[in-house]
């Protein structure tokens, strides 16, 4: 490769990314202050004077803060206990607690519906116990959304803290003990500072997920509006420019969260020695061990109940479970329906090809970007890194709106084409959402490759293509497969982008789930959910294997 080509490729990639991830947002920013070719602040004014808009923004904000607080309070202790304490069934409990990470948001929300909803398991149990005809509660509003957030998003700090503890050097704790620090002082002065980055990153993930959260407020919000749902309803009302302003406010909140987290989290403390996983401290007293075990098991069951409800409902004939606490009839018909009825399996096929295409494209782009951004010190590399990570911070709803806007006119010179209403917009949106997942993972993988391997191949006479095909690519495949699997799953379970961009021909499985619920086919909806969860679990397993071997 000549040096001109070598310089040109990163710049070309940067232009491509700017088109795909930056221009849509820029167009939203412009359209917010431009109507029918005239610059105007009408939409901003309309947003500013409307009480409901402020309420939605405020709701998004406090919901994010409350989700962070509750999710962290749940996730961090669970990580500490499952890593550092010993109790019966520790490993199984630890694995089960990671389950919400596998659940696509809409499926998780549906699971809650089956458990806590007006006709959910709990409500039915109370109705059958009291003989009442009306459900004892309505599971909706801010409380319901917050409950769903806390009990699904705790996985972020949980997984990150566990990962940090896995490489934690126990010699540090031993050194502290040898210097006279008791258990609590060692915890406070050694463990907590080391965990700060993991907790900070976990909090950031919760904040971004909560700000972007669409499924839970959409299904359970009732009158409780947050920005992502507000954007949709404003757009449906025809106030396109106001929807743009709302989108911008949403993006701004996400960027504020990102900035705050990077300030608070800092670069963190890194161990200088080898990481040795702490062996679980054995509780000597039998009763203590039992109490810990029982408490954790109880908590785990509570956190996993929605999944159990989903699984149960998927085996119940539709309409056969209305008044009793437990179902009176069982069937595998819901699963058979998924396979036997073309109208049922077609959305699956649609979701599979769209998610597959998006994940494959993301793989090619991310791999090229990662190779071009190999040198972490170069400015182009930093720009490439930032551009490919941008969709990670921006809520999916905002991107959906942005892409819908960008690809609703034909201006080839501005890179704008009419894609809205075609097959291609939704896969493109999945691609944008998948890019940061594959991109960040590939950039790390490429940078941790030993450059001497490439040099060794060069010294043995291998040209650029042979080096790539025989050395670089095979070594990246595990990490690539894992990241692509994650991107695929994100597309497969996507709801918030799909609900805005789908067409008749690209009706994905998430909309089919919602449709089935609205038609009362709860069993079929649950069966969809279970199948998606299983596919996701396999993909996560692959991703985990890729991460380990990388």
């Amino acid at each position, binding site marked *: 490769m000549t040096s001109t080509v070598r310089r040109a490729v990163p710049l070309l990639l940067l232009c491509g990314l700017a088109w795909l991830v930056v221009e849509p947002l820029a167009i939203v920013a412009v359209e917010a202050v431009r109507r029918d070719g005239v610059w105007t602040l009408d939409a901003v004014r309309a947003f500013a004077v409307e009480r409901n808009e402020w309420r939605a923004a405020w709701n998004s904000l406090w919901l994010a803060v409350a989700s962070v607080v509750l999710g962290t309070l749940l996730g961090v202790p669970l990580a500490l206990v499952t890593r550092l304490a010993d109790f019966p069934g520790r490993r199984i409990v630890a694995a089960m607690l990671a389950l919400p990470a596998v659940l696509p948001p809409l499926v998780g929300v549906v699971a809650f519906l089956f458990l806590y909803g007006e006709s959910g398991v709990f409500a039915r149990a109370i109705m059958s116990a009291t003989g009442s005809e009306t459900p004892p509660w309505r599971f909706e509003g801010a409380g319901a959304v917050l409950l769903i957030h806390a009990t699904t998003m705790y996985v972020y700090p949980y997984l990150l803290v566990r990962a940090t503890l896995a490489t934690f050097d126990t010699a540090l704790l031993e050194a502290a003990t040898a210097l006279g620090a008791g258990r609590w002082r060692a915890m406070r002065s050694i463990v907590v500072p080391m965990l700060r980055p993991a907790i900070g990153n976990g909090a950031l993930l919760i904040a971004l997920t909560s700000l972007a959260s669409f499924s839970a407020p959409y299904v359970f919000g009732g009158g409780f509006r947050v920005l992502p749902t507000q954007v949709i309803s404003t757009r449906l009302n025809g106030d396109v420019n106001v929807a743009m302003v709302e989108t911008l406010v949403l993006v701004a909140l996400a960027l504020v969260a990102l900035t705050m987290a990077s300030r608070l989290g800092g670069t963190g403390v890194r161990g200088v020695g080898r990481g040795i996983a702490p062996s679980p401290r054995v509780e000597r007293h039998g009763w203590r061990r039992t109490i810990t075990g029982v408490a954790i098991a109880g908590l785990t069951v509570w956190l996993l109940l929605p999944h159990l409800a989903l699984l149960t409902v998927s085996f119940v004939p539709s309409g056969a479970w209305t008044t009793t606490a437990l179902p009176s009839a069982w069937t595998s018909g819901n699963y058979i329906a998924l396979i036997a009825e073309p109208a049922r399996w077609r959305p699956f096929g649609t979701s599979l090809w769209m998610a597959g295409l998006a994940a494959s494209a993301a793989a090619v782009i991310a791999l090229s970007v990662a190779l071009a951004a190999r040198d972490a010190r170069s400015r182009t590399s930093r720009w490439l890194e930032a551009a490919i990570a941008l969709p990670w911070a921006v809520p999916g709803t905002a991107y959906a709106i942005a892409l819908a806007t960008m690809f609703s006119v034909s201006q080839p010179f501005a890179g704008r084409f009419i894609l809205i209403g075609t097959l291609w917009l939704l896969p493109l949106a999945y691609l944008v959402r998948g890019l940061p997942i594959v991109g960040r993972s590939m950039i790390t993988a490429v940078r941790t490759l030993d450059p*001497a*391997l490439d040099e*060794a191949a*060069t*010294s043995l006479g*291998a*040209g650029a293509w042979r080096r790539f095909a025989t050395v670089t690519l095979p070594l990246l495949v595990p990490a690539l497969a894992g990241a692509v699997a994650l991107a695929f799953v994100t597309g497969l379970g996507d709801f918030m982008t799909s609900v805005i961009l789908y067409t008749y021909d690209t009706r994905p499985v998430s909309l089919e789930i919602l449709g089935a619920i609205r038609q009362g086919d709860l069993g079929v909806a649950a069966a969809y959910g279970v199948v998606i969860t299983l596919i996701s679990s396999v993909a996560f397993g692959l991703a985990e294997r890729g991460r380990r071997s990388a």
Partner: protein
Amino acid sequence: MSGVRLDQVAKRFGATAVVHDVSLNVADGELVALLGPSGSGKTTLLRLVAGFEQADHGRIFLDGDDVTTRPALERRCGMVFQHYALFPHMDVAGNVGYGLASERLDRSGVLARVREVLELVDLAGYERRPVTALSGGQQQRVALARALAPRPRVLLLDEPLSNLDPSLRERTRRELRDLVRRIGITTVLVTHEQEEAFELADRIAVLHRGRLEQVGTPQALYASPATPFVAGFVGRTSRLVGRVIDRTPDALVVEASGMRWYATGDATLTGEVTLLVRPEGAALTPDTGAAGRVLRRRFGGAVEYLAVALDSGDELEVVVAPGAAHDGAHVMIRPTGVGAFAFAVEP
């Protein structure tokens, strides 16, 4: 014909000059060690020869060919990397045969050559082993076999023994020396350990801050170091400040710490000089000499090294028979007439 010739080669990284106008000839079949502390530019010099770095100016010749602007993959240098850089996803045969792709050999030809070099490094029968399952010493030998398989023009070794534990290192060093001698391949070795350089190299090139300080046989470097750095880095020395008081046809007479030393050095030196003295440059004496006290003793097997604090305030290391003096003993010291080098005082 010269195997490797460097002509005024220089390399900068940003504002830092890492290699300053180095010229060096490595004869056909000769093994030259680039010796220097970390940051001396020795690895950069090796990478310049391999083609992984491009020289800012100067020329590099391999077998008489000017390869200065030639890319690495056309230079036919066999390289053994410090951490071996074995391809972890290939087995031993995959690694060793990797460089044979351009040789137009069929499958059996490749396997035959692989077997041949594996026999050379005593790893016959290891073809199908994954490289990750090998011990450090075996990995080192696979790396060597891989570098040798395509019959390179020169062999470049970047600290090839630094990853081995001390006992294994010594054995591997001997095996490496025998192998390289047997093949007779021109070899450049980078090391920061003088013992390694002494045992392996025909000649040693001492590098310091990117400059070539001296090139010579180990004996020549030890007996007549060209610079204070070489005197201190190759072998041990004590540093004294002295004054030239006289000269003989083959030595300067220097007075330092109240003693008269016959030192080798530039005949034009006058006035104040730096005097570097090897442990064998001074001895204990029952007669008159400079008085001092034993500060510490260092065990050296058949001999013992004494650090002596002279009454003049200087410290001198002296080699003696074991048990010649105890800690804190008052001793008399005299020069032996060898192992003393005078240099101009560094500004």
